[in-house]
């Protein structure tokens, strides 16, 4: 059972376009994280959201956590070729009070063409 569903699975756009990728679940998460992974490297943390309805911005990237803490979205404004990569969402579910074990989605592979 895949707890976190990411869509779309693949996305190819032109430089300058805007895009949104989604991370959905039927489960409630105590926090949700977004990572970007480049070829041949491990994932790198972009942001953690912990409060329902929370919005965080990281330059041209905007992250939102759903009110019910079951879903999240990542919006990129004016995409650049350097944004190319695999975007992974990961959710933490409280276990004995600790949020130490993450469940990862399968990722959205983004290609931004110059």
């Amino acid at each position, binding site marked *: 059972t895949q707890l976190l569903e990411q869509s779309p699975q693949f996305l190819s756009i032109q430089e300058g376009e805007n895009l949104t990728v989604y991370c959905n679940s039927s489960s409630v998460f105590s*926090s949700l994280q977004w990572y970007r992974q480049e070829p041949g490297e*491990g994932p790198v943390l972009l942001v*953690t959201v912990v409060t329902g309805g929370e919005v965080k911005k990281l330059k041209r990237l905007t992250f939102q956590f759903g009110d019910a803490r079951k879903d999240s979205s990542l919006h990129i404004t004016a995409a650049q070729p350097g944004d190319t990569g695999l975007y992974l969402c990961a959710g933490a579910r409280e276990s004995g009070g600790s949020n130490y074990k993450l469940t990862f989605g399968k990722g959205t592979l983004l290609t931004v063409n110059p």
Partner: protein
Amino acid sequence: NAGVTQTPKFRILKIGQSMTLQCTQDMNHNYMYWYRQDPGMGLKLIYYSVGAGITDKGEVPNGYNVSRSTTEDFPLRLELAAPSQTSVYFCASSTGGKGGYTFGSGTRLTVV
């Protein structure tokens, strides 16, 4: 700071051989993890550890073993390698809070 260091970067094994994937971190993180990543399948948790001397199974532990004798090191042992173990393996560490994981750069393993 080195962060999480994995060795080797690449390895080819023959069916039935054994090997150990090394992972070390210098951030004094209590929590460490091993994931495998297959195309289109995301990251699957193999084993994790919440501190030295403590390990536990993840989603896909069969065919693997781990040990955690120190805070810094968390090696992953493959016994009797099988083609199904061809994958990219990532080690990660965390504080256990909401700060996220720090990943190594991965080991690409091919079993032929």
